[in-house]
């Protein structure tokens, strides 16, 4: 039985994330039309870490950026349209303002050349995998990328990979 990776932020290297299996989800709302899985284990949330190598800002709408961890480049999107999006129209205005403020703070942290730890949902855009960002932490320790590689490899082997069949 494949490990249950739902409701946890799976730490993945970029090449691993970009090679997730995408499956159309027939019983879905408009925001979850594609399901993602890694070696048979469905997952929805990830944590990646790397250098910001691309940044494209549309104030009040979104921030697109890329994270390069040495194994690949992951496109990320941070939505900034909370105050005008119908998705948030039913929530309390003070809650929406708070969420928008946090997202705006995250956007200001993302600069070309910084090393960022990013958490979010795995989503699809035009057939490619991307991360819809929910959390950003800027890392300053020069060894953090190396330690992230080791974390991802260890977790893959110990937790995420399916157990081999016993004969």
């Amino acid at each position, binding site marked *: 039985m494949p490990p249950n990776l739902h409701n946890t932020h799976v730490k993945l*290297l970029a*090449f*691993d994330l970009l*090679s997730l299996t995408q499956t159309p989800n027939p019983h879905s709302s408009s925001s979850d039309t594609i399901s993602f899985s890694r*070696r048979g284990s469905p997952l929805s949330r990830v944590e990646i870490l790397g*250098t*910001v*190598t691309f940044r494209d800002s549309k104030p009040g709408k979104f921030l697109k950026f890329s994270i*390069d961890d*040495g*194994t690949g480049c992951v496109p990320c999107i941070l939505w900034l349209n909370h105050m005008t999006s119908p998705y948030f129209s039913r929530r309390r205005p003070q809650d929406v303002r708070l969420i928008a403020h946090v997202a705006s703070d995250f956007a200001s942290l993302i600069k*070309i*050349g*910084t*090393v960022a730890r990013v958490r979010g949902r795995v989503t699809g855009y035009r057939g490619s995998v991307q991360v819809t960002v929910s959390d950003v932490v800027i890392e300053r*320790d*020069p*060894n953090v990328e*190396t330690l992230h*590689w*080791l974390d991802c*490899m260890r977790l*893959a082997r110990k937790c995420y990979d399916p157990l081999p069949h016993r004969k």
Partner: protein
Amino acid sequence: KKKVHHFILLRIQEYSVETAIATVVDGDSKLKIDTQHLRDLSFRTGSIFQFIGELLIHPDNEAVLQARVGRNVDGIDLNLYHQSLQLLRQFQADHIRA
């Protein structure tokens, strides 16, 4: 030819302000880094820098890395980095085979 690289460099051996070219060394190997597009970085000789950019091969076979991104990584554990990089490449190869 162009190729995207992710580099960790041992140290900056010399830096020219006029040309914005840094020369970096890794053992017996040297490489030139074009830093003209980088901002807010001070290049101290002897410091270790990480660059990401495109490797351009000139007609005279000289390779220059045109850096898009750079950062000072003084304090990095280079032994850990190199050993981890070997493990990483093996992990990637195993993943592709699986």
